[in-house]
């Protein structure tokens, strides 16, 4: 409440009362009190008059310049949000992977060209490595088989297993393969020898026959194999010597046994004659 006695102490309160009264935002009681105060206080009355004059000036400016203006419709460019919204809807529509790929590459030609170049480079790389790996595999296959046999054959010979001896002959035959005719004859020889040997080596024979037939078809590949066969030859000759030495020993022993048998028989005859 406004009071004349404490006028200076309630400046803030007066200010609030003045603007509230000026803009008509006071209730009836507050209005009556403030009007009573203005009648009794010249300072507040003068203050209110000054403020009211300024307010009127601002209202005049507003009425003259602003109220005559038409408020134009504010246009908001909804295009971008709408386009974004439509794009969202479009993206929700299910598409095949081929269409999606097409859309992806249709964004920029640089992307398309770079992708095609990368694909081309990958294809060339795959072809190159595939060729390289197949050559390596073939050579490695031949080497591994021949070395396996080379390792196994002398063992068998030394341990006096005559049944396995023909396998050395196979190796010899394999080593000597250099032409179609030779290979055929060797294959036939291998067949005949294998018939006498153990049944375990039958699959080796088939494999060999197949290999021989393949080699006869590809004479160019035999060049590499010749080098391997030369090495095999040296080892096989040594094995052969051992084998022949063993067979000679056996034949000599057989001859000795036969001679002994004959001498025994003659002795028996002599004994019989003496007894008689």
């Amino acid at each position, binding site marked *: 409440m406004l009071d004349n006695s404490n006028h200076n102490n309630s400046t*803030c309160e007066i*200010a*609030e009362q*003045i*603007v*509230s009264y000026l*803009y008509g*935002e006071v209730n009836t009681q507050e209005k009556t009190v403030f009007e009573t105060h203005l009648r009794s206080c010249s300072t507040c009355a003068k203050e209110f008059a*000054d*403020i009211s*004059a*300024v*307010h*009127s*000036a*601002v*209202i*005049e*400016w*507003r009425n*003259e*310049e*602003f109220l*005559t*203006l038409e*408020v*134009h*419709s*504010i*246009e*908001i*460019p*909804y295009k971008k*949000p*709408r386009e974004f*919204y439509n794009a969202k809807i479009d993206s929700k529509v299910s598409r095949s992977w081929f269409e999606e790929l097409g859309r992806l590459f249709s964004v920029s030609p640089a992307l398309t060209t770079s992708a095609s170049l990368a694909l081309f480079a990958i294809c060339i790389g795959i072809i190159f490595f595939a060729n390289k790996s197949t050559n390596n595999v073939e050579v490695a296959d031949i080497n591994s088989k021949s070395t396996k046999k080379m390792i196994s054959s002398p063992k068998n010979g030394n341990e006096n297993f005559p049944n396995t001896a023909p396998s050395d002959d196979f190796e010899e035959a394999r080593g000597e393969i250099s032409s179609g005719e030779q290979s055929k004859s060797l294959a036939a020889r291998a067949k005949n020898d294998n018939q006498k040997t153990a049944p375990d080596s039958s699959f080796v024979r088939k494999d060999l026959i197949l290999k021989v037939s393949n080699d006869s078809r590809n004479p160019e590949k035999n060049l590499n194999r010749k080098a391997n066969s030369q090495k095999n030859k040296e080892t096989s000759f040594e094995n052969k010597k051992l084998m022949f030495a063993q067979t000679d020993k056996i034949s000599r022993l057989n001859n000795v046994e036969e001679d002994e048998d004959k001498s025994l028989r003659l002795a028996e005859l002599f004994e019989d004659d003496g007894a008689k």
Partner: protein
Amino acid sequence: MINFSCKVDLKTRVMVNNLTDEQLVEQAVNENSEAFGEIVKRWERKIFALCFGMLAREDEARDAAQETFISAYKNLKNFRGEAKVSSWLHRIAVNQCLTVKRRTKTRSESFLDDENNTEKKVFVAPSRLLPSRMTEQNERLKIIRQAVNSLPVDLRQIVVMKEFEDMTFQEISDTLDLPLSTIKSRLYTALKQLRMKLERTPMEVV
């Protein structure tokens, strides 16, 4: 109003009219452009008044009002609902006006700096007035406009909200998130400063 390319049925329009500002923003966030159109319809006049009071130029005020709504539309998802929509729009509008003023200052095309050029005056004087009377009136309005524009921003926006937008003290308090007493005292201070500025001019205020 905003011209929508799609036809909006009557039911949607009625529904939108019954919603509060906050509900409309929520609808607009969920990509209902009609809801944002209703927000523009409700606030375009007041925002334009605020911009005009702040900038004192019709063309700049129109641009600022438009930019305010565009900015609001773009930042709909950033509206957290903690403040009122009116406060949010007013804050955007005031910031937009300050940006425009800064831009015009840098370009040295400020209306206040170019007051002598009468061709650039944007207000339209009532046709009922005589030319001599119009000149007097124009001079008078120019002084008032200058005085209002020279006020600090925090005081000026309260004067504009009160005089141009016809907002109540409570509405201004809610919009600016300031106590009611602060709003009243600031308005009082603003009017006092205006009085002092107008007293310096040779022309009588009232």
